[in-house]
């Protein structure tokens, strides 16, 4: 799969229907080619600027209140109060395939033109692997979490994935209990290393198989996970502050 990436000139399979519709290298283009390793050539923006191109035809089903395409050049003064837009089902060949494979464990949805799927915790390692290997989601944009203390499964963990080949961005979301751990996705995407560390740092969610799971932004000995909802905004690890900074309070 990385073969597509290594050759920069090979255009992504989709999202680039007409490669050369405009003028080549304008005079203000790259001049500094003294040793010539930078070339500027011209790429047309895709004709259709949907957030999810061809593969993901957005179903304009409910109420048409949610404009499907974020970049739609509509008059700006559109009324900003649509009646509580709700996520709509998301349909695409990829999703159909996943659905066929995993059944009810996967719930693909679209909201504000953005596709995501809620995946059962047990399916997470497999789905991520499949997305990476078969569906070319080779770039893990972000891993993060959201805390819902009132829910039974307290945490949403979200992977934001992007595929260079399809020019498509999706989110994978799962719900886990407090204290439950997740398999690390470092073997799938190396970038997950720090991102998972940050999630661990901020939420206390453990990732099994992570090579070096420790705090990243907060000091090592810190107690508590600041981005949990039960952690107050002024709260801090007073003990740590007193020991390490020698002051009563950091605030």
């Amino acid at each position, binding site marked *: 799969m*990385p073969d597509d990436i290594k050759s*920069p000139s090979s255009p992504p399979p989709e999202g680039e229907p007409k490669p050369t519709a405009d003028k080549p290298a304008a005079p203000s283009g790259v001049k500094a080619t003294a040793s010539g*390793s930078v070339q500027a050539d011209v790429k047309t923006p895709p004709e259709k600027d949907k957030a999810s191109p061809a593969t993901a035809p957005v179903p304009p089903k409910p109420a048409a209140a949610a404009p499907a395409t974020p970049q739609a050049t509509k008059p700006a003064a559109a009324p900003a109060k649509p009646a509580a837009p709700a996520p709509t089902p998301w349909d695409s060949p990829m999703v159909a395939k996943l659905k066929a494979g995993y059944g009810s464990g996967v719930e693909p949805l679209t909201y504000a033109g953005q596709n995501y799927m809620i995946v059962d915790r047990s399916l997470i390692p497999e789905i991520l692997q499949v997305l990476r290997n078969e569906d070319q989601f080779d770039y893990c944009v972000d891993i993060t979490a959201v805390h819902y203390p009132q829910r039974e499964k307290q945490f949403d963990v979200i992977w934001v994935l992007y595929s260079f080949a399809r020019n498509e961005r999706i989110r994978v979301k799962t719900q886990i209990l407090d204290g439950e751990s997740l398999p690390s996705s470092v073997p799938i995407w190396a970038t997950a290393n720090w991102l998972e560390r940050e999630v661990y740092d901020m939420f206390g969610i453990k990732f099994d198989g992570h090579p070096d799971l420790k705090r990243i932004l907060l000091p090592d000995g810190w107690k508590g996970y600041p*981005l949990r909802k039960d952690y107050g905004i002024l709260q801090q690890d007073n003990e740590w502050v007193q020991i390490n900074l020698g002051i009563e309070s950091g605030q």
Partner: protein
Amino acid sequence: MTDANSSLSNLDLETPEKPFLDANELVINMGPQHPATHGVLRVILRLDGEKVLGLECVIGYLHRGVEKIGEHRTYTMFNPYVDRMDYVAAVSNGLGYCETVEKLLNVEAPPRAQHVRVILTELNRIASHQLWLGTHALDIGAITPLFYTFRDREEILKIYEKYCGARLTTHAFRIGGLQYETYAGFEKDVKNFLNFFRPKIDEYEELLTTNRIWLERTKNIGRISAADCIALGVTGPVLRASGVKWDLRKAQPYANYKNFDFDIPTGLNGDTYDRYLVRMAEMRQSVRIIEQAVDALPEGPIIAKVPKVMKPAAGEVYHSIEAPKGELGYFIVSDGSTQPYRVRVRPPSFVNLQALDVMCRGQLMADVIAVIGTLDIVLGEVDR
């Protein structure tokens, strides 16, 4: 997939190489107070002589809990906070945040606002690249470019100052459009700047591009392959210099970038020199974009109709823009109240910094400085 992973399999910190003549490994701590780490970055280097065996970044010295603050402020109140992350490209941060909230609110900024946003963000991209060039050259030992770039960056900051009164943390945009109408003579100022700035890029390049020492210090230094870049999630000029022609402005156009004609410069080798050339070319492209935007600046309202008290419907949105340093993403969860339930910032510097270890393996200690410089990190954004 196997390919990418095999290239990564030799990235683990323990390189099993037998030491020669019982040479002791030297562990050196760089930072957090160090002139070349661009802030409070701490790097722990494992050296064999001057050769880097591996390194570990220790970050968080500038952690201010921006994401936590976001949960306790209304959508409007949080807007100025994002400027404090990547403080050299504050306008880009603001743009990303505003657009994300606009998506949640389902509004769109009017065309005039979009144009001005593009102008200001691209000016900001130039300013950010200028600051990068100056400090990067300074790290490699050329002092003079720093003063040249700061002299010219000043002109951009003057435009900001005239527009919104602030120079660095501008808070230039409002959710739904702009904070202020442009001042009289804004177009003229911008055009003057472009005419002033175009020859200046040549001036920078004259000092460095063909300078033999510069070539020796940057060519083949800190190489990173496209596959590694993607696996490590590296974006922005670093990714492009490795040969991947990917720019969010083209791939998933936001604001109204699709109306403008510009190129994506890419490199071939993914080394420090290519990253330098890519950024220099990007400045020229930014000049092109600004020129088109100023010429086609439409009249009209500058802010869409947004409610005074913003209560986006419950839902979540991830939106990202091409900040000067790479993909800057915001993931905002709304629960229908006036405050975001969760704000997640996907900082380009943070993710790019992860590649430092890969890029520095086997290089010399002096190159670590060059590579930190070429990654163009801002610690305010890394630590948030």
